[in-house]
């Protein structure tokens, strides 16, 4: 199991360190410093320790102690699994955890289709088999101006795209949620147009940050979080993270994502987190991190500017919100 922090460019640090070492790292550093080698030795020493722990075999990860690359602690499993927007199960935050008990994420079929050399329809197990999942701690920023920090488990969408081999006509990826009103009471209402659809530009889809997620906190995704397969694009507002995916289609034209269809004035296709472009009805300059009292400043691209800003060079982000 690889445990990686959200910035692929970063060297993993505390996230992959066993808890006992991590907790005692200060005393370890002090010892290293006292040993006349000084702090310069510390990184090497830590690496040696990490190698040592890897040699000990599979490690028990204490997910509650994980932190993002900015040092933010992850939110509790309870918060992550009881405060959800998943309108297929109802529109209040507690509805998904309360109403998704009858949902069956298995057996499950995923279709890869459209402008690809290798289309196909797969049982979930076969679909997932070729990919190596890893844990990643990402910030999740909702368009409603709240946020949390989540240890997801998944694999880069880029890995799938590599295998699917899109043709030159594929400019976008369109993802679709399952349509199953018998198990998703919200689909009986006309609050949104079902099934839920989201999309990414191909370069966004292949960005190393973009994840197809199968788990959270080291466990399989609970139904309310989008079991068995969902998307995570941490630099975009949460609604881009389509849940319970059954179809991944490579298309030429920009997909009509559900929230854009519902209200194009308020929700765009790109939906990049941007503190300088307000939602028409509320400010996006600040957010409430769940568990914190005072609102904090929202970061450009949710703090992933280094990884994603180049994709939008020269674009007017006010127009393409």
């Amino acid at each position: 199991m690889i445990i990686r922090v959200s910035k692929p460019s970063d060297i993993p640090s505390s996230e992959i360190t066993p808890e006992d070492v991590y907790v005692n790292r200060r005393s370890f550093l002090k010892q290293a410093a006292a040993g006349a080698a000084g702090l310069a030795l510390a990184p090497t020493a830590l690496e040696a320790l990490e190698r040592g722990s890897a040699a000990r075999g599979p490690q028990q990860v204490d997910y509650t102690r994980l932190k993002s690359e900015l040092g933010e602690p992850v939110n509790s499993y309870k918060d992550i699994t009881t405060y959800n927007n998943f309108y297929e199960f109802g529109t209040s935050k507690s509805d998904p955890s309360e109403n998704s008990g009858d949902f069956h994420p298995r057996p499950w079929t995923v279709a890869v289709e459209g402008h690809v050399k290798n289309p196909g329809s797969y049982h979930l197990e076969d679909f997932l088999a070729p990919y190596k999942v890893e844990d990643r701690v990402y910030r999740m920023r909702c368009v409603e101006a709240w946020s949390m920090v989540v240890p997801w488990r998944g694999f880069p969408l880029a890995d799938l795209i590599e295998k699917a081999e899109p043709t030159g006509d594929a400019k976008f990826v369109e993802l679709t949620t399952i349509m199953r009103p018998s198990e998703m009471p919200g689909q009986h209402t006309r609050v949104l147009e079902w099934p839920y659809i989201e999309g990414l530009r191909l370069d966004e889809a292949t960005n190393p940050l973009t994840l197809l997620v199968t788990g959270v906190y080291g466990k399989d995704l609970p139904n309310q979080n989008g079991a068995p397969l969902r998307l995570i694009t941490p630099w975009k507002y949460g609604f881009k993270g389509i849940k319970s995916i059954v179809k991944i289609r490579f298309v030429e034209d920009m997909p009509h994502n559900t929230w854009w269809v519902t209200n194009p004035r308020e929700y765009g296709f790109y939906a990049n987190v941007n503190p300088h472009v307000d939602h028409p009805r509320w400010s996006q300059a600040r957010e409430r991190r769940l568990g914190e009292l005072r609102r904090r400043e929202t970061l450009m691209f949710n703090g992933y500017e280094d990884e994603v800003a180049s994709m939008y060079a020269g674009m007017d982000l006010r127009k393409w919100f």
Partner: protein
Amino acid sequence: MTTKRIVLTLKVLLWLGALAPTAWMGGGALFGWLGANPIEKLEHVSGMTALIALLATLLVTPVRRLTGWNPVIQLRRPMGLFAFYYVFVHFAVWMGLDLSLELSWITEDIAKRPYITVGFTAFLLLIPLALTSTRRSIRRLGKRWVKLHRLVYVAPALGVIHYYWLVKADVRIPLLMGAIYAALMLARVPAWVKGRPRRATAARRSRAKLVEGREPRDTVAVAAVD
């Protein structure tokens, strides 16, 4: 049971019902059942209670007309005051907890977000009503009191708009609230149409009664407002 006893019983029930949301919010804050976003939960519960209480206040007069049982009117003032109390709690949670008393954030929100502008306006409109709900004010302001307290028809409308503009897609409950408000206003139309030519005299008469100070205040207010 005597009328007095019935009214007393109703008042006790009203107090219990009206304070239940406060007890729930307080308990939740103490024992942690407000969920992952407790501030938002407090805003939702206080706001919803405020709107329901405002609509309930508007229900009193139609019930009185429909049943012909006048003492019910004595519930109207406590209901209105409870409504204002929850509007105030809603406002205080938003300003104090949600926006941490940051003046620049507060003014920006009021100025730039229509749903907050509307909600804030409703709060402002209700302040003079709460302040003039004493017997003394009714007596002193007379006819002007009646005019002033017509604002109680405006505030819930603003509350419904505030709620409608706030939700992202699921407008069913705001629409239901709007429908209830519309029904409560429609229920008043016949009485207004009938009472129109006599309004001036009615007001004069009620004022005279007020001056005499013999008529129970609530009955007087009803005769005048509706």
